[in-house]
């Protein structure tokens, strides 16, 4: 039994799932489910389809896979034993690193939200409280003075002229 990877979304294909498509040049495309198969038939490029691993790795959303070394090693019992013991820890480290990568991506969001909230408070406080009320009651919140050009006041003479 061998776990393959879906050609389109890069998820693991367990036995009994999915379809393999053999092209006339004998290249095999494995798909995990009909969603991926149908996208392939539509000739969509997985690197452009947002929910695939290919897109996420390409655009830095997910941690890129470490380089796989396919060179076979001579069987050494000690190496084999140590590897089997270490697999659990290696998996945990990989999982943590991937989670860290995503956490780092989300880090600047909290600071940005705070900045935007402060700016909105300064600008739109008048939606909640009238400017005069703010000035008299809470000197802590300073509303920046907004200069408005006053319309030219109609003098009595102008009004008589209109009539």
């Amino acid at each position: 039994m061998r776990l393959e990877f879906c050609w389109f979304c890069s998820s693991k294909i367990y036995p009994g799932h999915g379809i393999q498509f053999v092209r006339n040049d004998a290249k095999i495309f494995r798909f995990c489910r009909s969603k991926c198969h149908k996208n392939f038939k539509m000739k969509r490029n997985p690197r452009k389809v947002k929910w695939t691993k290919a897109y996420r790795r390409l655009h830095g959303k997910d941690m890129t896979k470490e380089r796989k070394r396919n060179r076979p090693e001579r069987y050494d019992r000690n190496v084999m034993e140590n590897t089997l013991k270490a697999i659990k820890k290696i998996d945990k480290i990989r999982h943590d690193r991937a989670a860290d990568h995503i956490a780092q991506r989300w880090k600047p969001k909290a600071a940005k939200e705070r900045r935007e909230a402060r700016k909105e408070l300064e600008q739109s406080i008048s939606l909640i409280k009238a400017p005069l009320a703010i000035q008299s009651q809470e000197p802590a919140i300073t509303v920046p003075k907004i200069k408005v050009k006053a319309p030219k006041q109609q003098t009595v003479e102008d009004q008589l002229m209109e009539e």
Partner: protein
Amino acid sequence: MIQPQTRLNVADNSGARELMCIRIIGTSNRRYAHIGDVIVAVIKEAIPNSPLEKSEVIRAVIVRTCKELKRNNGMKIRYDDNAAVVIDQEGNPKGTRIFGAIARELRQLNFTKIVSLAPEVL
């Protein structure tokens, strides 16, 4: 799912290019043929100056289908086209070369010569 009137590509160098299925060998009123079934076909298109001519009735074994082939381990394989290899009454291929991938099922059905000539067995 090959049935009479289905056009198939020819996957060997026997001289035929395109076959049209006429009949499926096996039980009477069998509806569809899959990979490994023998069919009676008529040659619709042939390479010029070859031993096989157009509108000759011959037998062929199906080696690739667009319909998925289901295996006992749950694997499903789908090919890009429908293809057959021209054979004689005993089951030996008429051509000397096979083109394209062949399904592993043919070995169990005693088409060993075809499997041995195939460039890729999947």
